[in-house]
């Protein structure tokens, strides 16, 4: 089964997001506080750094393994643009729901912990939705 560089890249983005933020949220849910603590901000920043490092290293490895494909003259065309737009549309719907729900949580609850984490969770889900939608569209052909 042929898997293009772009599909591998999307797979890497999904797996890294789920792994890094999955770990972050497991830790956060085991240390729920009313307000976000300094230690949680450091943990979040560390998660972002780890995510970026995984994605950079992963893409370098994927690019080296796909040199022949990446040396082709055409890298993106109108179909790629359409796929990206469909991914963004699905992602923006998820994010809109997330913003609304986090506002509800912010108004109803006390402190900022729940508000911040509901918003962050929906941002992660929106990103995964974007990449997963693109991946499905590419796999369909």
């Amino acid at each position, binding site marked *: 089964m042929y898997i*293009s560089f772009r599909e591998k890249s999307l797979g890497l983005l999904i797996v890294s997001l789920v792994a890094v933020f999955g770990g972050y949220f497991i830790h956060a849910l085991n240390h729920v506080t009313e307000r976000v603590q300094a230690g949680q901000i450091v943990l979040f920043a560390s998660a972002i750094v780890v995510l970026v490092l995984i994605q950079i290293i992963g893409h370098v490895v994927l690019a080296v393994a796909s040199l022949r494909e990446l040396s*082709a*003259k*055409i*890298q*993106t*065309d*109108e*179909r*790629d643009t*359409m796929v990206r737009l469909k991914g963004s549309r699905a992602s923006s719907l998820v994010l809109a729901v997330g913003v609304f729900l986090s506002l509800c949580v912010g108004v109803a609850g006390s402190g900022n912990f729940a508000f911040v984490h509901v918003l962050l969770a929906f941002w992660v889900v929106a990103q995964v939705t974007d990449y997963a939608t693109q991946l499905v569209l*590419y796999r*369909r*052909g």
Partner: protein
Amino acid sequence: MKNRLRQLRAKRDWSQAALAERLDVSRQTVNAIETGRYDPSLPLAFRIARVFDLPIESIFDPGDQA
């Protein structure tokens, strides 16, 4: 939308990659058009018609969409 891209390409003995290069698109896009999973934009349809030196309507059949 149905099309005769695969037959026309085969008649000229071009690979998908060779046609993709002539059309300035990726090989995957040529494959998606041939299998009917992606309908090209009007500019790309015109480029396809120009490459094969045929009118658009002899390559693409809108079928029920017309």
